């Protein structure tokens, strides 16, 4: 009796690697992305070119970086619609400070502080005043973009003072053949994945997303953790803003418009549950990859870019639908 009980307690749930892998949404999404790449390489002679792959990796890196932050927010049971506006605010602060003749490091710090301030306001209103994340971040979407317009007078900036070349190299260059935004994304993904799995913070983020009431009762500092996830999400948007200025070589106030939707789609496709409680850093990256590959394929296959919104929107709905069906099955 005792031995069989101990045996039962010590047994692991998944007996082999395949059972574990196939139960992961991110695994199937990863397969889909790989399949799409293989298909495109054979259907077009433009996909597998160095130039195109360079563009794809860089584009997907920007979405992937913010999807990491978004995954933290969604896992905690929230949503952040203001990331696209945080991108333009951060980019604009970088551009303005550098154009005024200040060095890059100062501009980058101020840009990240501006983004963090947006996240802090979001988080404080949501955590301490109990306002719905959707409403707060929707308001902030408008406020932050408007602020970027006010700061710049809605003009394009393309000259960045003494560190001009460095900025273009940082955002648009490559080291060892890897575009810098991609390197930034990989570093951030490793950092985020580690934080999710191995820190108390990560544990608490997922606990809050799973059952906020339980998290409060066990004494987790729920409010502080909530503020931190919105600041993290804004921070990833801030990093993207700084890098994207360098990549584009100029900033206009429509930068990052509608980006929140792509980012949310990436996170959700990668397994983040909009009801909170699940999501992975790897999933966010893979989700971003799949979206960018599909987006790129539409262009290469000569399909009008007007269709892109249709795909992104459908992805969100389909991913949530899968989740519903899966959730119902496991609840039985």
């Amino acid at each position, binding site marked *: 009796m005792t031995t069989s009980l101990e045996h039962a307690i010590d047994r692991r749930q998944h007996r082999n690697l395949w059972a574990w892998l196939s139960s992961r949404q991110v695994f199937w999404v990863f397969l889909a992305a790989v399949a799409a790449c293989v298909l495109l390489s054979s259907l077009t002679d433009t996909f597998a070119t160095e130039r195109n792959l360079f563009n794809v990796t860089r584009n997907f890196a920007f979405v992937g970086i913010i999807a990491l932050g978004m995954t933290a927010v969604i896992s905690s049971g929230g949503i952040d619609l203001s990331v696209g506006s945080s991108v333009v605010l951060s980019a604009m602060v970088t551009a303005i400070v550098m154009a005024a003749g200040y060095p890059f490091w100062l501009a980058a710090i101020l840009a990240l502080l501006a983004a963090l301030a947006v996240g802090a306001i979001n988080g404080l209103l949501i955590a301490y005043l109990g306002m719905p994340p959707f409403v707060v971040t929707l308001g902030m979407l408008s406020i932050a973009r408007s602020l970027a317009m006010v700061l710049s007078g809605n003009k394009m900036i393309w000259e960045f003072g003494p560190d001009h070349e460095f900025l273009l190299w940082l955002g648009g260059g490559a080291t060892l053949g890897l575009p810098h935004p991609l390197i930034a994304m990989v570093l951030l993904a490793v950092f985020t994945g580690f934080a999710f799995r191995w820190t108390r913070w990560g544990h608490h983020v*997922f606990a809050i997303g799973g059952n906020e009431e339980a998290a409060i009762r066990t004494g987790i500092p729920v409010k502080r953790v909530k503020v931190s996830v919105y600041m993290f999400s804004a921070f990833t948007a801030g990093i993207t803003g700084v890098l994207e200025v360098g990549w584009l070589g100029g900033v206009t106030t429509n930068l990052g418009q509608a980006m929140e939707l792509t980012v949310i789609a990436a996170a959700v496709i990668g397994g983040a549950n909009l009801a909170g409680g699940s999501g992975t850093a790897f999933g966010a990256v893979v989700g971003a990859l799949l979206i960018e590959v599909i987006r790129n394929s539409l262009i290469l296959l000569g399909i009008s870019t007007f269709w892109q919104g249709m795909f992104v929107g459908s992805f969100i709905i389909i991913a949530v639908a899968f989740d519903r069906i899966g959730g119902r099955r496991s609840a039985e």
Partner: protein
Amino acid sequence: MARLELKGVSKNFGAIQALNGVSTRIEPGQVLGLMGDNGAGKSTLVKVIAGNFSPSHGQVLIDGQPVQFHKPIDAQRAGVEIVYQDLALCNNLTAASNVFLGREPRLRFGPFGILDYQTMYRRSAELFKSLKSETRPRDIVQKMSGGQRQAVAIARTLLTEARIVLMDEPTAAISIRQVAEVLSLIGRLRDQGISIILISHRMPDVFAVADRIVVLRRGEKVADKPTSQSSPEEVTGLITGAIETA
């Protein structure tokens, strides 16, 4: 010496007298069944013991020492734990994560610390074994039976070496087979010398595990006697007021 002693505990909210001079005691390793109709003062009494409310009058003593709780955390530090009716578990996390939620052990590397999953799995497995519950530390709570979920919630109280565990309607919304499992969990807690206050509407469950029964009616204690000297009929009468006191 009594593990927990209440001396003339009263609580009023404005003009409403929720508790009126309730005195009772519970020994280590004893199960006290707390019964009463809705609004009889059960929840108020539990909240006083758990530190959600401070009593308007009277005293709470733990192991003979008078205690004054201002917040639930004060009560927790004194060894009082609550298992909530809805169990307060995170369905998306593993059993071990739930047991250690909010008190995760860490391996320290200078100023940094990473979660010590090995300790979490090992300790949870030990706790489940001591409860004789077939609950696997690495399983997600979502997929567990009601009895296993109770075991997770109870293991959490064992982790802190609680001395008094308050259980609020633990058998209210689960199947009959699982009720038996929960009642045996309560037995195991008692065997470890923990004092348990069981709040329940279900007469058979209380009679199955409680050593003593306290009945509250309109904020006053109307009965406090060993289970063996009472009967479900008598308790029903006491709850409804058909029997004045016993």
